C-alpha cells in the first residue's frame, strides 16, 4: 500500500513478475492486482492496492484500498522518499492497525538529485519496522526488500491517535531524519512551469496532442502497410481461397468466408475467417497498439495531470473536472478501459456524465476504423463532419447533463508529479496490458457477431427486419431500410458494420448520417457490460435511454441539415 504515484505497481511487478500498469498519473490502479511470489520456498499471495493518501477514503479506488487492508497478513508500505512528510501520514495510520509492516523507501535515487538526505537507519529505529531503500524502476533494493519481508513487525508503541497527533509525530520524525539542501530551479522545473501556465501551456498542449495523433497515425499506417497487410494478402489470402474452393457454395461458405463466387474482400465479405479476422486484427489492432503506446508515453512522463489542469475549466462546465480527460483519452483506444477509469471520479454525477459521454461521443479505434473505412474514399471533409458532430455533442450533452443530473461536481484536486523519464520497458508492458483488453473482449465478440449476423441473414430475419423499419429509416433519417441491419450489427461490433454500409451504395452525406448514428446510439456489448457494472443497472438504463434518444434526434437533425427536408 501507499500514496498514489509512488511506484507501488512497479514494486509489485518486481516482486511478482506480473504485468501491472504503472504510470506517472495518480489513480491508474483502479482495480487491484494479485500475484504470487516465493519467500523461503513458501508461496505467498501479494495484492497491489490502489493508491491512497489516508485510510479515510475520498473515492472508490481509495475505498477499495482500505477494505483490502483488513485481509492482509503483512503490509508492504511503499513510500515516496522525495516526499517523506506527506507519505508518513498513511504510514502512521497503517502502523496503528496492528498488522506487521515493512517499508520500501522508493524513488531513493531521486532524493540524491533533489538534495534530500534521509537517515534511513534512524527512521527505522523511530518507526520500529524494517525500512529498505528501493529504486523499483531499476530493481535496486528489491532483493533486500524480499529478504526482509519476514522481519516485518507490529510497532506496539504506536497507538491510534488524532489527525493532529499524527502530524505532530511526523514533524518530530522529519526533524530527526531528513535534511534538505537548498535547490535551484532546474531545467525540469522550468519545463514543468511552462507546460502548466496557461499562456505557454495551452499552445504546447495543442502541439503535443497534434503530434501525438500524427505519431499514432504514423505507427499505425506503417504497421498495417509493412506487417499486417502483407501477412494477410500474401500468406493468409491463398489459404482462404483454397478453403473457399474446397467448401464450395453453401451455408458453411457464407458463414465462414462470405458469398460464394464473389471475390474475397476482407472488409465486405462478412465471413468469420475473412472480415471477422481481418478487421479486428489488421485494421483496428495496429492503431490500438500505436494509440496506447503513445498514450503510455504521455502518462509516464507525467504530462497528463498538467493537461487535466489546463482543461479543467471546460470539463467543470460539463459537470466533471479536469480528470474527465482520462476516460476520454483512454476511450479513444477502446471504450472498455475508458469506462473502467470513470471509477476514479469522486461522485455519482461525475461518473454518470463521464460514462454517458464516453459511450455516445467518444469513438474507439474500431469505430474510427469504421468511420475512416466508410468515408475515407470520399475525402476528409466527410470525416470531419462526423468528428465535428461528435465534438459538439460532447459539449452540448455535457452542459445539459450537468444542469439536470442531481448531485455534486466537486472541484479538481490533483497532484502534479514531477516529470520523469518513461522507462521503455514499463511503457511496452502497459501498452500490452491495455491491448489485452481489446484482444480478450473485442475479438470474441467480433467472431460471435459475424456468426450471429450470418445465421440471421441466412434464415432471413435480418431482411425482414430491414423491410419492417425501412419507412422509419427513410422517413426520419433519409437512409435506406437496409441500414438498420448495419445498426443491429453495430451493437455487437461497430467495425463490423462498415462492410455492410459500404455495400449499400449510399451517397456520402447519407453515409455521414449512418456512421454518426452508429457511433452514438449504443456502445458495443463489451463496453455495455462494463458500464452496467460501473454505474449499476438503474443508471445504465437511464444512460442507454439518453444514447438512443440522442441518436434519433441527431440523425433527424443531420438529415435536415445535410440532405434538406
Amino acid at each position, binding site marked *: 500500500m501507499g500514496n498514489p504515484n509512488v511506484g507501488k505497481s512497479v514494486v509489485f511487478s518486481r516482486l511478482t513478475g506480473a504485468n501491472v500498469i504503472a504510470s506517472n498519473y495518480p489513480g491508474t490502479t483502479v482495480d487491484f492486482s494479485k500475484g504470487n511470489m516465493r519467500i523461503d520456498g513458501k508461496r505467498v499471495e501479494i495484492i497491489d492496492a490502489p493508491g491512497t493518501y489516508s485510510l479515510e477514503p475520498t473515492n472508490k479506488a481509495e475505498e477499495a484500498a482500505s477494505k483490502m487492508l483488513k485481509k492482509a497478513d503483512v503490509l508492504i508500505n511503499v513510500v515516496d522518499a522525495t*516526499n517523506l512528510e506527506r507519505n508518513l501520514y498513511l504510514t502512521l495510520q497503517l502502523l496503528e492497525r496492528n498488522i506487521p509492516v515493512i517499508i520500501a523507501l522508493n524513488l531513493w535515487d531521486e532524493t540524491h538529485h533533489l538534495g534530500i538526505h534521509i537517515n534511513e537507519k534512524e527512521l527505522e529505529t523511530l518507526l520500529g519496522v524494517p525500512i529498505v531503500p528501493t529504486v523499483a524502476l531499476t530493481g535496486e533494493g528489491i532483493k533486500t526488500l524480499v529478504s526482509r519481508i519476514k522481519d516485518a513487525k507490529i510497532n506496539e508503541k504506536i497507538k491510534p491517535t488524532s489527525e493532529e497527533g499524527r502530524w505532530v509525530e511526523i514533524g518530530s520524525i522529519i526533524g530527526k531524519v531528513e535534511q534538505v539542501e537548498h535547490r535551484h530551479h532546474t531545467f525540469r522545473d522550468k519545463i514543468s512551469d511552462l507546460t502548466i501556465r496557461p499562456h505557454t501551456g495551452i499552445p504546447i498542449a495543442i502541439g503535443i496532442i497534434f503530434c501525438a495523433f500524427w505519431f499514432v497515425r504514423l505507427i499505425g499506417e506503417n504497421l498495417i502497410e509493412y506487417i499486417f497487410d502483407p501477412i494477410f494478402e500474401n500468406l493468409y489470402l491463398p489459404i482462404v481461397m483454397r478453403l473457399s474452393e474446397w467448401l464450395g457454395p453453401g451455408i458453411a461458405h457464407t458463414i465462414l468466408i462470405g458469398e460464394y463466387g464473389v471475390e474475397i474482400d476482407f472488409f465486405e465479405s462478412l465471413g468469420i475467417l475473412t472480415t471477422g479476422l481481418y478487421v479486428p486484427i489488421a485494421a483496428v489492432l495496429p492503431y490500438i497498439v500505436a494509440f496506447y503506446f503513445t498514450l503510455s508515453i504521455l502518462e509516464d512522463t507525467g504530462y497528463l495531470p498538467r493537461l487535466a489542469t489546463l482543461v479543467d475549466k471546460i470539463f467543470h462546465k460539463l459537470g466533471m*473536472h479536469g480528470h474527465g480527460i482520462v476516460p476520454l483519452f483512454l476511450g479513444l483506444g477502446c471504450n472498455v478501459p475508458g469506462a473502467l477509469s470513470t471509477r476514479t471520479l469522486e461522485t455519482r454525477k461525475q461518473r454518470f456524465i463521464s460514462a454517458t459521454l464516453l459511450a455516445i461521443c467518444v469513438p474507439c479505434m474500431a469505430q474510427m476504423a469504421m468511420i475512416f473505412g466508410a468515408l475515407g474514399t470520399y475525402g476528409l471533409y466527410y470525416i470531419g463532419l462526423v468528428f465535428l458532430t461528435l465534438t459538439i455533442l460532447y459539449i452540448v450533452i455535457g452542459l445539459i447533463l450537468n444542469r439536470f443530473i442531481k448531485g455534486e461536481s466537486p*472541484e479538481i484536486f490533483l497532484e502534479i508529479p514531477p516529470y520523469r523519464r518513461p522507462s521503455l520497458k514499463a511503457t511496452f508492458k502497459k501498452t500490452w496490458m491495455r491491448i489485452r483488453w481489446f484482444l480478450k473482449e473485442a475479438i470474441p465478440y467480433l467472431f460471435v457477431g459475424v456468426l450471429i449476423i450470418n445465421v440471421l441473414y441466412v434464415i432471413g430475419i435480418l431482411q425482414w427486419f430491414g423491410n419492417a423499419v425501412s419507412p422509419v429509416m427513410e422517413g426520419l433519417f433519409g437512409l435506406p431500410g437496409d441500414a438498420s441491419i448495419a445498426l443491429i450489427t453495430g451493437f455487437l461490433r461497430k467495425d463490423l458494420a462498415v462492410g455492410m454500409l459500404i455495400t449499400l451504395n449510399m451517397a456520402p452525406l447519407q453515409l455521414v448520417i449512418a456512421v454518426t448514428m452508429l457511433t452514438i446510439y449504443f456502445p458495443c456489448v463489451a463496453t455495455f457490460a462494463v458500464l452496467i457494472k460501473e454505474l449499476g443497472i438503474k443508471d445504465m438504463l437511464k444512460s442507454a435511454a439518453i444514447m438512443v434518444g440522442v441518436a434519433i434526434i441527431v440523425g433527424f437533425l443531420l438529415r435536415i441539415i445535410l440532405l434538406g427536408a
Partner: protein
Amino acid sequence: MPLSHLPINKKARIASIHGGYGFQRKLGVMGIREKQEIKIVSKQPFHGPLTIEVCGSQMTLGRGMAQKITVEVVQ
C-alpha cells in the same frame, strides 16, 4: 488574504483553512495545513484552478477551494 489573491511565485504561509472536517482532512493529507509554506505556480484563466507548491510537491486545486484557504505573505 485568500490564497486565490496571492500573486504567482510569492511565498506565503497558510494562516487558516475554513470548511468542514472532511475538507480539512482532504487537504491535510496532501500537506496543505496551517503554518505550511505555500506558493502559487500558475493560475488558469476564467476562474480556473490554481496550481500550488506545498511541502515539496505540486498540486492543482479549484478556485473555490482556494477561497477557503487564507495565507500571509512571508517577507
